[in-house]
């Protein structure tokens, strides 16, 4: 049987996950010294790490080519999909928020607000739930620019410390929800390889619990 395959979001979540895996006793030398390779064996060969962009982690897990994945809740909320979201790994913490130019009232007046975001689905569904009509504009790069340049009334984005917002004259209007890295599992894989995946998830849960206890 092929090794369990876990897709990691490249970058900071990858580093945090590698630390977690090493804590669980997996030898991650191959990942630390990966060069340009994207599929890497870790530990005794029972686990294989795939490095991917965040959105692709969700796609790989949903389609079952990877059994598990580590990805931010922000991406899960934006993409949706069918998979099990078994654990909150506790790192990569930030939050989704609505932000507007400091000193302005976003909900004043009756014009339809224009919202700029990289997370168009999150933005749309948030305002749908609030039953507020908005035009959502997709922005790929620094979303903070949009209200400053006058393209949008507000933005929906992930906020960590709020420094970037402040430096651009924006302030948080509303918090939408907290975000952190999640461990996700393919639906069929969870059932067909219950023993292996179950053992891995339990080990991860124990480690998170002991960290939370500290």
């Amino acid at each position: 049987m092929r090794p369990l395959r876990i897709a990691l979001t490249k970058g900071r979540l990858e580093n945090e996950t590698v630390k977690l895996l090493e804590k669980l006793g997996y030898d991650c030398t191959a990942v630390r010294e990966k060069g340009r390779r994207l599929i890497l064996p870790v530990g005794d060969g029972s686990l294989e790490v795939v490095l991917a962009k965040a959105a692709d982690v969700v796609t790989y897990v949903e389609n079952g080519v990877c059994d598990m994945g580590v990805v931010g809740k922000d991406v899960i909320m934006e993409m949706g999909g069918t998979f099990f979201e078994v654990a909150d790994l506790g790192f990569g913490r930030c939050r989704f928020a609505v932000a507007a130019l400091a000193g302005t009232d976003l909900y004043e007046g009756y014009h339809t607000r224009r919202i700029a975001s990289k997370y168009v689905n999150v933005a749309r569904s948030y305002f749908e739930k609030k039953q507020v009509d908005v035009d959502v504009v997709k922005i790929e790069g620094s979303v903070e620019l949009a209200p400053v340049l006058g393209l949008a009334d507000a933005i929906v984005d992930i906020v960590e410390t709020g420094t970037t917002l402040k430096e651009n004259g924006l302030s948080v209007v509303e918090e939408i929800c907290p975000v952190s890295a999640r461990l996700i599992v393919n639906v069929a894989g969870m059932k067909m390889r219950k023993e292996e995946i179950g053992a891995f998830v339990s080990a991860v849960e124990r480690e998170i619990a002991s960290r939370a206890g500290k």
Partner: protein
Amino acid sequence: MVRIYDKITPEGTRDILFEETRRRRGVTDALAQLFAARGYREVVTPTLEFYDVYGKAADYLPQESMYKLTDAKGRLMVLCPDGTVPIARLAATRLAGEVMPLRVSYHKNNYRVSPELKGRSAQIEQSGIELIGASSLRADLEVLEMAARSLETCGDTWRLELCHIGIFRALMEELDAPEATREEVRLCIEQKSYAALSDLLAPYRGQAAAAGLIRLPRLFGGAEVFEEARGILSCPGALESLAYLETVFRHLEKMGLGGRVILDLGLVNQAEYYTGLIFKGYLDGVGSEVLSGGRYDGLLADFGADLPAVGFALDIAAATGEVPEGSLPAPDVVLCAPEEEDIAAALEEAQRLRGEGLVVVLSDEADPELALCYAKAVGAGRFAVVTAEEEA
């Protein structure tokens, strides 16, 4: 005018070719036989149904998941998104006078609007059955045995997974929490979000139902799940459903399906639709479920006939799996008729060989050399030139 879309198919659809059609036909034929041998009679319901047929299905078939169009009178129609609802309509209306229970099978394409660029199909080929008008243990076992045999025809390594929605429903009835929280609880159980679920239920820790709900998504696996569940669940309704599920499980073990049947008490995906057993089938190497079914005793009442029903459907594309290109066998024989007068003789010879079970193609070339080239190109096993004189 420049046409952009004249050489491609719409997203979510594709051409299904040669090897794959053969494999799909193999699967659907085997299933049709299996269903027919158990007394299930096939029906074909239309691809177009009135939108109103799905009017009460909004909980599990949201309107944005259906393709809609209008008929000549401007009435709203849908491309049929599922196999069961039209059969419920049929059973409650023109089949209402038939001997009950009704055993019905179908094979059709369903259409669902799926999120863009997710690699998911908009056209879903399904084979399925419904057993209508029976709610006994025998009825449930009949359908489960069929589901198991159906999976068996699709692959060697398969699992049939069971749940009883009564467990979840009983716990939720006992839980004293606001409506918004309840839906979130259901979602957390469905997605096995262990941590989120226990955070969500933390304020209700004192309630016995909350303790059960927190453990529900972890209660999956083999027979050991029953013991574990009995230790956790306390409300009588949940225990009653659990006992029924165990009875079903033991019967399936007796049928020799023991190692293949698994449990997941956290299958709550369509909690509003199903009323009893829920089951899913998986094949090794296929990332999504291949078979899906359950008991839906409330659906036919929507059409004015209060009848219990249970059934399942297989996703034929998932059941067929990946099909390698070029795995279709070449014709056994290519024949060539050099002269016009030889054509009748060649066709007769072709027919004779087909009688022996061979696949025979008559070349359209008159020149035997060109015909031979064709035979070699397609990889035919044999080549022969047929002339009328030879036959005489």
